[in-house]
């Protein structure tokens, strides 16, 4: 699998100070550069497109459309969830949230309230403008009523989480609730044998959730094979590998694309290849106004890139690596027998044989010509057939050897059985003997 995606969070569009405008402008240039080298397959936006509930306007839409245009992606290739700044507070919802928070078990109370249509409607009432923007931009409804929803594609799953259900005030980090029953409903659609790359996206980091809900999220992510959790909100980039579960979970936090006294601009670039996630975080250099790799996030990102073998794929990789090596060994043995036989004939009868070195005229020359037709040419064909039908075992940087070999055996055959002959036929490429190493 080869997937590359961009993770952007916390644009806070209404923040329009000089640095924010510059980092957005340069973001477009930077992602264009990155896309030229290795195209992105999709984009993830983890909330807070808006600032302090000021809603959505044409500027946000234009900027996001520009990102898609630059990356040559369609609206189907961008995944968005709401952040706490994308919602509008109202009295009814505030009262209900207070009831939840003050109850004996807020986590269970939220679960209950989400089963009640009237309460659920009040909780979701703050998401109207986000839903409208979502529809206008992507021309499809945000399934707000489902609370959390799963989007499945051929190669990956995106679990859209709404972490803002009870978000309503400053300083609520550490007490937020996920609506764990609804999360279970959502993840159940994946099935426990989910073997696709599965990314959960939410606005808040796991640390922003109440302990009860953080634990529930981790357990559910574990049971339903979620590989990555991508979030934003804290305006500082970071990574963390949750290893207290059966499966590890990689958490990535993207910084924002706006500037204030606290925020450090940042975005994430993910490459998933051969079962390994390679995560690059970029940071905004406000002094010289450019995006650069962020190597300050921890020892595992010393070079600016975090390499994380996704456990689900690592198991398969190990198994398939053994299978590949066994297959290679078998083929190498088969090829070695054919090469050895050809070499024996060549050394015994060929134009460089001891006999040929000592006399220009010998019956060996006729034997050689006959052996070429009866043995060497058929062996060459067998070798080529074996290699071509096992091309996937040849590393990309060695595929050219197969072409050299093909050219050689084609010319060799022409020189021996056709009326068209040439001294310029490529000689035997010795590298073919180690093509599978």
């Amino acid at each position, binding site marked *: 699998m080869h997937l590359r995606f961009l993770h952007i969070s916390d644009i806070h569009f209404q923040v329009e100070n000089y640095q924010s405008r510059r980092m957005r402008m340069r973001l477009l240039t930077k992602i264009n550069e990155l896309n030229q080298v290795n195209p992105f397959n999709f984009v993830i936006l983890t909330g807070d497109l808006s600032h302090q509930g000021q809603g959505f306007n044409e500027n946000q839409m234009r900027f996001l459309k520009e990102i898609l245009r630059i990356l040559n992606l369609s609206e189907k290739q961008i995944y968005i969830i709401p952040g706490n700044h994308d919602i509008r507070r109202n009295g009814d919802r505030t009262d209900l949230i207070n009831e939840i928070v003050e109850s004996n078990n807020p986590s269970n109370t939220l679960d209950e309230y989400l089963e009640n249509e009237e309460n659920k409607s009040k909780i979701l009432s703050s998401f109207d403008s986000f839903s409208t923007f979502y529809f206008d931009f992507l021309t499809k409804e945000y399934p707000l009523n489902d609370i959390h929803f799963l989007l499945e594609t051929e190669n990956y799953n995106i679990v859209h989480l709404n972490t803002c259900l009870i978000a309503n005030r400053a300083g609520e980090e550490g007490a937020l609730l996920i609506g764990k029953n609804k999360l279970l409903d959502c993840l159940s659609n994946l099935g426990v044998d989910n073997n696709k790359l599965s990314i959960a996206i939410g606005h808040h980091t796991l640390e922003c959730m109440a302990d009860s809900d953080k634990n529930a999220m981790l357990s559910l992510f574990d049971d339903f094979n979620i590989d990555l959790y991508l979030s934003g909100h804290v305006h500082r980039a970071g990574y963390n590998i949750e290893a207290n579960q059966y499966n590890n979970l990689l958490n990535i936090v993207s910084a924002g694309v706006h500037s204030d006294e606290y925020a450090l601009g940042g975005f994430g670039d993910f490459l998933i290849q051969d079962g390994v996630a390679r995560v690059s975080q970029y940071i905004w250099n406000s002094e010289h106004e450019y995006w650069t790799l962020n190597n300050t996030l921890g020892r595992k990102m010393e070079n600016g890139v975090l390499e994380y073998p996704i456990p689900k794929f690592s198991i398969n990789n190990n198994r398939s690596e053994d299978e590949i090596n066994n297959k290679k060994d078998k083929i190498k043995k088969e090829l070695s027998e054919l090469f050895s036989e050809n*070499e024996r004939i060549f050394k015994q009868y060929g134009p460089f044989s001891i006999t040929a070195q000592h006399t*220009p005229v010998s019956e060996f020359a006729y034997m050689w010509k006959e052996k070429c037709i009866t043995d*060497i040419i058929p062996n060459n064909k067998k070798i080529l057939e074996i290699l071509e039908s096992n091309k996937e075992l040849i590393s990309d940087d060695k595929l050219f050897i197969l072409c050299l070999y093909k050219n*050689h*055996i084609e010319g060799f055959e022409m020189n021996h059985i056709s*009326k068209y*002959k*040439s*001294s310029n036929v490529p000689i035997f490429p010795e590298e073919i003997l180690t093509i599978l190493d």
Partner: protein
Amino acid sequence: MPEGGRYEKRPRPESIQYFLGAIGRHNKVRKIEQVEEQLFKITKTNGRKVLVHLTNIYTVSEAEVIEIMSSHNHIDAIVTISTWNSYSVSGKDVAKANKIGLFLIDEFMGALNFEGNQFINYLTPYQREQLKKGKRSLF
């Protein structure tokens, strides 16, 4: 198959000795002289002269024939000495069109029994037999 390495285009000394000996003993040949490293003058018993360029090119094709021709004012034949060697149809045709016989050593031994076009177009008994059977490639 490992058909590689450098193949020496110039005949080895032992090949030249073989050529001088074999041709010198031919019953239609009175004398053979080495004029240059690769150029030999054969005087036949009927007094006719045959100028031969001796080579060890592994596969003599059109390009090699033209190259050899351009290095001499006149030659009557090109012989590629080793029986491991061969030539292409186009090489043979270009040589014939220039009234030059292009031969392997065994063919040349037979061709020396003839003159003119019969010399240039000479086929060994095996080649004639193959031709009768309709096999396209005689070389």
